[in-house]
């Protein structure tokens, strides 16, 4: 299937010479959820704003559903829903009116049943006649989502949907995203919460300093980096790894008091039992055993860190 979003060599420089995007290329398949991970100021919002038409690219091209965002902007934008990072809403407007406005603005004929379905899905139906200023922060964010969904987009951008949102609402938001995915909506979300990307994304992209450092299937990324380490802490320091334990590729660290063993959690045999019995057979006395797993966070921090070092 053709990708719903095709970004090729997108660049954006501001008048003051700042390069917010340095040649980003990315293809997003219909129906997937992709999380763009990156620190503040990495260019996530600029990327989304450029695709949506809020900022203009310096060079490069973007197509949405095969429509160029400049020459066929009507067709392209009609497919897109955008939930911005900032809560930008008219305070004195009623919820239902602002959502109805959004639908009209995107050229869709009014359809009260569709709006009701969207508002109910977001638990906003009871609040439809409230003025927006009367709503809590979390509810306002839902209104933003309702506005973005009002014209039934095929591609939804969620720019840091859970920034500054409590845990419960974040879980709700993830459920909403799952529901949308089930409806066949493609979702691009930016976040700097790694757990969010881990929880809901199919693919993860890492952006730093205007460059896309990596895009990978979340599962394979986790698998590649999903090594686990077992630290065997000893009561007495060793001079070297005993010959009997050589086959385990152990490393000695922590003033020669800890033996570290790396293994794959998904392998049929992790070799832990055998290792531990061999350790005691070698006459070593255990003080403690600790396991560690690399998370997306480690991968992410590692990538961003490497990038910073390369820049020096």
């Amino acid at each position, binding site marked *: 299937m053709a990708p719903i979003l095709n970004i090729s060599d997108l660049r954006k420089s501001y008048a003051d010479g700042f390069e917010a995007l340095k040649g980003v290329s990315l293809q997003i398949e219909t129906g997937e959820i992709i999380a763009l991970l990156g620190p503040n100021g990495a260019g996530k919002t600029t990327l989304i704003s450029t695709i949506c038409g809020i900022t203009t690219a310096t060079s490069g091209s973007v197509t949405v559903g095969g429509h160029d965002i400049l020459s066929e902007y009507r067709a392209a934008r009609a497919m897109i829903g955008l939930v911005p990072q900032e809560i930008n809403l008219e305070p*004195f407007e009623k919820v239902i009116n602002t959502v109805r406005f959004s639908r009209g603005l995107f050229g869709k004929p009014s359809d009260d049943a569709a709006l009701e379905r969207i508002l109910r899905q977001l638990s906003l139906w009871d609040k439809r006649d409230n003025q927006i200023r009367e709503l809590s922060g979390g509810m306002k964010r839902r209104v933003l989502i309702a506005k973005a969904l009002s014209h039934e987009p095929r591609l939804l951008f969620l720019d840091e949907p859970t920034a500054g949102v409590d845990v419960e609402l974040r879980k709700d938001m993830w459920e909403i995203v799952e529901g949308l995915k089930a409806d066949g909506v493609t979702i691009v979300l930016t976040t700097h919460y790694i757990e969010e990307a881990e929880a809901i994304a199919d693919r993860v992209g890492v952006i730093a300093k205007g460059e896309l450092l990596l895009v990978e299937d979340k599962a394979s990324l986790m698998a590649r980096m999903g090594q686990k380490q077992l630290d065997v802490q000893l009561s007495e320091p060793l001079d070297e790894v005993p010959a009997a334990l050589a086959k385990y590729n152990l490393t000695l660290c922590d003033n020669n008091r800890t033996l570290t063993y790396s293994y794959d959690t998904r392998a049929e045999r992790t070799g832990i039992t055998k290792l531990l019995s061999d350790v005691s057979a070698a006459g070593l006395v255990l003080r403690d055993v600790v396991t560690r797993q690399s998370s997306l966070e480690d991968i992410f921090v590692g990538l961003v860190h490497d990038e910073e070092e390369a820049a020096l």
Partner: protein
Amino acid sequence: MNWTAIKAIYLFEMARFFRTLAQSFISPVLSTCLYFVVFGAAIGSRIQEVDGVSYGAFIVPGLIMLSVITQAISNASFGIYFPKFIGTIYELLSAPVSFLEIVAGYVGAAATKALFIGVIILITAFFFVDVNIAHPVAMIAFLVLTCLSFALLGFIIGIWAGNFEQLQLVPLLIVTPLVFLGGSFYSISMLPPIWQTISFFNPVVYLISGFRWSFFGAADVPIALSLCAIAGFTTLCLLIIWWIFKTGWRIRQ
């Protein structure tokens, strides 16, 4: 053409107007009544007829123009400045709409509001003075064109303004003096020759003169010139707006 979008913007803006309906109407009606009391009754009773029309009736077209121009500018400038100020402009920029549709929605709504107010003032005037409208069709055409062209100007001001002070600046410093000195309350022919010459550089003179012609059949400047002036002004505003959207000036980075 995305007609649905134009309608959505138009209705959304009109809803704001109807939400504050009382305020929207009371203030212009009250100020018009005050003008009639002060200029029409108190001072006007000592002034001779102007061009064969009683002074009270003579100022009606000028008063309507004064309110309509002020309202068209303030409604349109606020209408587009507010989304910029609170950030909801992101939605307009990311919607499948052309600049023409955005302008049509906002300017159409602002012009409609100004037109409402103009009509209300005309009705109010009937309670104070006898007004005969010599050319009703021309009168309506002038009124509508004025509402539209100054709403376009207001739209430009709203895009240009970076804060609320600037939003007030142009109307206060430029438009109000031009309207007051444009013959709202007097005939240009009443001025000394040098001031008559200067007045003809004021574009509002042509509007008020043309509008007054539609009421009384007499004017300071030929009606054709008035029409050219308003057509030229509207075209200039449209060109500026077209340039704004083409370059993204003050809206799209």
